[in-house]
């Protein structure tokens, strides 16, 4: 393994574009706040995705033109949005009935840590004095059919986010299906982290080094 050459993986937009390729036409999707929101910019040709925002809108559209913002039409990140043709408004209990009842196809979330068994930690560092806030993350991971994590492979200070077991408080146990990072696309399997694609020009060994658990390379069998 060489770390003397700077390794450059996918950028944020490339990560979002890569994830979007894996979403089937007609999917109902909840986009988490932050990088996940970028996915909506990269819908593959010929596909239609319908976006759910947990504060009561199905069929969320892009940001409004400047001056067209409505303070009562916002998404879960409290940003101004629009409603597409075919949209519907509903109250919060109905919105989370969609989530908890398994009606959404895909939840795309950010992460602080993901364990090799699919545990997700993305709401609290557990630090004393921190203000706890959880929002809808625990509902999403418990209810949505598939959970994709879209995140940098490591923290800003270089700490691996993919770990044997999470040290931060959990959002859910065994809930993550797939992880998209700047370095790789990685499935959670019964055998742990299984890379299915590595970013161009990134050595597998580098991805493994940035991962705090065993990572199976793309060529190797899932069942080993």
């Amino acid at each position, binding site marked *: 393994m060489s770390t003397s050459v700077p390794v450059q993986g996918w950028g944020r937009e490339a990560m979002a574009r890569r994830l979007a390729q894996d979403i089937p036409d007609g999917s*109902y999707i909840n986009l988490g706040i932050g990088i996940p929101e970028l996915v909506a910019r990269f819908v593959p040709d010929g596909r239609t995705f319908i976006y*759910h925002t947990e504060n009561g809108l*199905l*069929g969320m559209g892009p940001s409004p033109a400047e001056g067209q913002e409505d303070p009562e039409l916002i998404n879960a990140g409290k940003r101004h949005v629009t409603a597409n043709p075919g949209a519907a408004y509903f109250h919060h209990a109905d919105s989370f009935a*969609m*989530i908890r009842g398994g009606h959404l196809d895909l939840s795309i979330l950010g992460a602080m840590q993901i364990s090799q068994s699919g545990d997700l930690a993305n709401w609290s560092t557990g630090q004393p004095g921190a203000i706890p806030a959880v929002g809808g993350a625990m509902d999403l991971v418990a209810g949505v059919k598939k959970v994709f994590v879209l995140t940098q492979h490591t923290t800003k200070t270089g700490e691996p986010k993919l770990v044997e077991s999470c040290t931060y408080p959990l959002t859910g146990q065994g809930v993550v299906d797939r992880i998209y990072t700047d370095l790789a696309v990685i499935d959670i399997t019964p055998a742990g982290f299984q890379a299915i694609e590595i970013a161009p020009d990134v050595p597998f060994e580098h991805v493994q080094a940035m991962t705090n658990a065993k990572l199976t390379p793309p060529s190797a069998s899932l069942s080993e």
Partner: protein
Amino acid sequence: MINKRMPNAAEAVADIPDGASIMVGGFGEAGSPIELLHALIDQGAEDLTIISNNCGSGEVGLAALLKARRVTKVICSFPKTANSTVFPELYREGFTQLELVPQGTLAERIRAGGAGVKAFYTPTAVGTPLAEDKESRDFDGRTYLLEHGLTADFALIKGLHADEHGNVIYNKTARNFAPVMAMAAHTSIVQTAKVSAPGELDPEVVVTPGIFIDRVVEVPHPAHESELIAAGVSYP
């Protein structure tokens, strides 16, 4: 491209297999999806479990499905009707079983099934024969029964107007069980008098958001049970 429109009722129900569980909308004749039910009779599936507030009347719609000996179990709050002998005969014969559920518990169990709520505690039916064999528990000095969420393989419901994304609005008291059944079934099929392109329904007035609907069939002039019965129809 999302378009849930089906060409006709026959194709909408074509894949319902023997042994399926099916929620059927309607309270009395209001909201009964007659054309979908008749298509299901034509299709031939049997050994069905039907979840519905009533068991139909006359020999059309849901009553006709029962009469055709396709239904071996009903989950229901009020299977009797003034003008049908279909269910009573099948029940006394032992062909069709009955799980009797109080109406509000039935609605709430269906809503829970659709909302991912596995079970809940309700005060309804405590101290009655319908509490037998049910878990009970006291909270704050009052007794409640544990009731379980209810889901089904299919829902057959009737709306007034839908769009191709599956958003639905209803007509008056024909709404009844349809919105919660749409939530609770794996495959929800709605017949409406009109099907439009997305954008024709005001997002503020949509009752059932499209995420709960899988198939939409336009039936421009739906029949009403009472009219068919008055006309002496016995289906098929």
